[in-house]
């Protein structure tokens, strides 16, 4: 219901978008209150969100995944074509593309960009991503405005590989690259005049720790339907604060025009002030994020019960997800039973089958209860385990308390252990010395390609079992289906396979999925076209279309 409303809302907004350009007003500045500062302007190495937010406005890729439709969309490319065998992608660049410094953007820049990412000496985080079947993409120029990408074997999400790879200005970066100084290029201290990109904005001013101002890129390629050049805004400013409360306070104090990625509590705080302050609030329903209770299913795990599907199912069935969403997230989260949230429009398999009664599941598996209501396993040992939670985030400690109480009701003693985040990850990933942990993951895309690392045996982030091997038939089955769906371009078949994987994960519950925090956004009334998306930057993805309504 929530989703449908959100969709309706989006469609209404889209309708107004088509009507507005005739009377929309260019100019002005929008101030975004961010919780964290970019670490630099280097598009290759930046993996943190605050840097990516700014870099996303300074640079542009060939293709991108539209944040609302979740389909591939041409950006610097005028068009693209995938060969029938699924191994070659041909991309045609738009005419007269220019970087923000006025230099032309040609196929040479495209070749340079991919050469940089694939160079082992550069150590780009995309190096392995830009490999198919263990072999790098072969990028060639097939004309002055045409580039060809060849893959060693058919890959289902081929063109999605290109999405998000910002095209770098060769004339600005090649010297440093040749001299082996690529990493120190475009750090936080870089002068705006050193930078160039093909995004809608360019850097104007940096005040470290305080704010950052971008101004419109006069050479930006995009125009609206009336032929007016984008972006509408003259300037974008980022105001840096730390912590949600400071972010909300600055928005409410009138220092900023927009804030996002805050939690339900902050939503609530803004809600009680918004009338007076002219703030518009938006809850766009579930995001791609999923929080889950993770069982340690590594070989050599200390808790024999975890290996039993019935036990994990009983734990999943005992969870009061509604309460977590209502109490911990103050109603701004959506209960989920599997790792794929409804926000992944075409990939979501629909609600899971209703769960059986937890006590029935347990007694069928040979568990009993003693006189005090404690759960005993078939050998007569009482069932108890520890649950690691990230101490820095109150939402996790509170979720932990709810899980503890829910499992107490079926006789399981859970001890919640709050722990500093990196200590926690060290236990889960390196030492594998834990029973269960509360974690959250954010897939980078809606396409199943984003889940491969997290779910298949060979993936380094299959947190429940990092042995690299399939220890159970269902793990092997997930491996098989994921492999099959990444090797075909038959979208209907991919969907079917992906739905099957979801059902397996819901059924086997190696991760007991709990909730997906909703996408929340607050903006000043009058700033139009601000719409939360699901992929990439959740708010800034269409900043080139924002404008101030004429008063």
């Amino acid at each position, binding site marked *: 219901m929530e989703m449908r409303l959100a969709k309706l809302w989006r469609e209404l907004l889209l309708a107004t978008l088509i009507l507005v350009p005739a009377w929309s007003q260019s100019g002005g500045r929008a101030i975004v209150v961010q919780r*964290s*500062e970019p*670490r*630099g302007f*280097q598009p290759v*190495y930046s*993996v*943190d969100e605050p840097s990516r937010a700014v870099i996303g406005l300074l640079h542009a890729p060939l293709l991108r995944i539209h944040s609302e439709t979740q389909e591939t969309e041409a950006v610097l490319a005028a068009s693209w074509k995938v060969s029938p065998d699924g191994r070659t992608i041909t991309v045609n660049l738009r005419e007269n593309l220019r970087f923000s410094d006025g230099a032309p953007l040609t196929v040479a820049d495209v070749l340079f960009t991919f050469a940089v990412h694939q160079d*082992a000496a550069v*150590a*780009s*985080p995309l*190096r*392995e*991503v830009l490999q198919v079947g263990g072999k790098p993409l072969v990028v060639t120029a097939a004309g002055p405005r045409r580039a060809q990408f060849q893959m060693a074997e058919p890959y289902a999400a081929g063109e999605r590989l290109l999405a998000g790879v910002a095209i770098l200005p060769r004339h600005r970066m090649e010297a440093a690259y040749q001299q082996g100084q690529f*990493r*120190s290029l475009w*750090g*936080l*201290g870089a002068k705006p005049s050193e930078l160039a990109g093909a995004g809608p904005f360019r850097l104007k001013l940096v*005040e*470290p*720790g*305080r704010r950052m101002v971008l101004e419109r890129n006069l050479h930006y390629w995009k125009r609206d339907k009336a032929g007016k050049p984008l972006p509408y805004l003259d300037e974008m400013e980022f*105001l*840096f*604060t*730390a*912590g949600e*409360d*400071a972010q909300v*306070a*600055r928005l*409410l*104090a*009138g*220092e900023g025009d927009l804030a996002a990625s805050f939690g339900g509590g902050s939503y609530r705080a803004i809600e009680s*002030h918004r009338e007076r302050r002219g703030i518009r609030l938006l809850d766009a329903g579930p995001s791609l994020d999923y929080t889950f209770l993770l069982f340690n299913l590594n070989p050599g795990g200390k808790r024999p019960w975890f290996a039993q599907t019935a036990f994990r199912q009983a734990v999943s069935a005992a969870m009061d997800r509604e309460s977590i969403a209502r109490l911990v997230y103050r109603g701004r989260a959506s209960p989920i039973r599997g790792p794929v949230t409804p926000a992944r429009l075409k990939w979501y398999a629909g609600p899971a089958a209703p769960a059986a009664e937890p006590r029935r599941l347990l007694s069928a598996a040979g568990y009993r209860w003693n006189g005090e209501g404690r759960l005993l396993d078939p050998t007569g040992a009482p069932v108890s385990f520890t649950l690691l939670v990230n101490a*820095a985030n109150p939402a996790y400690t509170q979720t932990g308390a709810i899980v503890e109480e829910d499992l107490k009701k079926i006789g399981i003693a859970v001890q919640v252990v709050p722990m*500093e*985040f*990196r*200590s926690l*990850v*060290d*236990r889960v*990933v*390196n030492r594998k010395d834990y029973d269960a942990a509360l*974690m959250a*993951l954010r*897939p*980078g895309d809606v396409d199943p390609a*984003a*889940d491969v*690392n*997290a779910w298949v045996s060979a*993936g*380094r*982030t299959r*947190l429940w079992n990092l042995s690299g091997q399939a220890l159970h038939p269902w793990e092997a089955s997930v491996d098989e289906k994921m492999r099959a769906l990444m090797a075909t371009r038959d979208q209907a078949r991919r969907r079917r396979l992906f739905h099957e994987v979801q059902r397996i994960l819901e059924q086997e519950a190696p991760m007991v999925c709990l909730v997906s925090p909703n996408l929340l956004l607050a903006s000043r009334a009058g700033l139009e076209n601000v719409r939360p998306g699901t992929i990439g930057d959740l708010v800034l993805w269409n900043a080139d279309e924002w404008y101030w309504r004429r008063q």
Partner: protein
Amino acid sequence: MTFLLRRLGGALVQLVAVSALAFALMELAPGDYLEDMRVNPQIPAATVARWRAEFGLDQPAIVRYGRWVRSVASGEFGVSMAYGIPVSELIAGRLGRTVALSLLALGLTWLLALPCGVWCAAYRGGWLDRLLGGGATVALALPELLVGLLVLQGALWAGWGPVSGRIGPAVAVLAAVSFPSVFRHTRSSVGQSLRLPFVDHLRAAGLSETRILFRHVLPASLNPLVSLLSLSLAGITSASLVVEVTLSWPGMGQLLLEAILARDVAVVLAAVMVAATLLQVANLIGDGLLYLADPRIRRRPA
């Protein structure tokens, strides 16, 4: 002169010891900078391995410490793993703002707390004593984090306009947080001196009470208060981390908070060195004050 030189030499040794111990402490804690990339499905394992080698995290601790020392010698103070630039460049602008905030807060605290403490010691149980005593108690029960939040909330509620990123509110909150300690110690220490016999002699000589308090009793109780000076500076620099973050003051606070959590070793070490240096300076000033004010100490060689 030799005294100063010896002090300087001692301070250098001290800074080396601080950096080595701080480094060792960071080694003790589990996890490293790359930990959160290990749970990010979007970052391939090979990238994490390569970055590990590039940051030198695969080297033994002693090698990394040696590398850091060499980098200090060249004036870079190490390279931040998160920002990819030398720490000296990273903290250049912010350090000054943190030091300014801390010193202003220190000044304000002492300016308020010292006279209040002296006055309340002389007029124990008076209305000011009761009021300030009660206020200090409430301030003690509230950690600096909450005081900052209350100011944010109060500003919103009363419509004072923006308070974030401004130095005034940040100084006020820091001073409010560190007031109780200076106030109470002054009050107790002056109270003790007031009972010394010489006070009665001065009273008998017909000096005014205010004059006795501020010209005679206060200098007599200076020694413990000077010790308190460097302590309150240490307290303020650590509290300023939290206050800067809650009130968005663009100093080292946020940078350091993220660096601590991210195990960005070079940034944390730099901050520790700054704190240690400040402490040394405060102690030097304190000793100088004592030397000037307390003839009993001046008699003996330092």
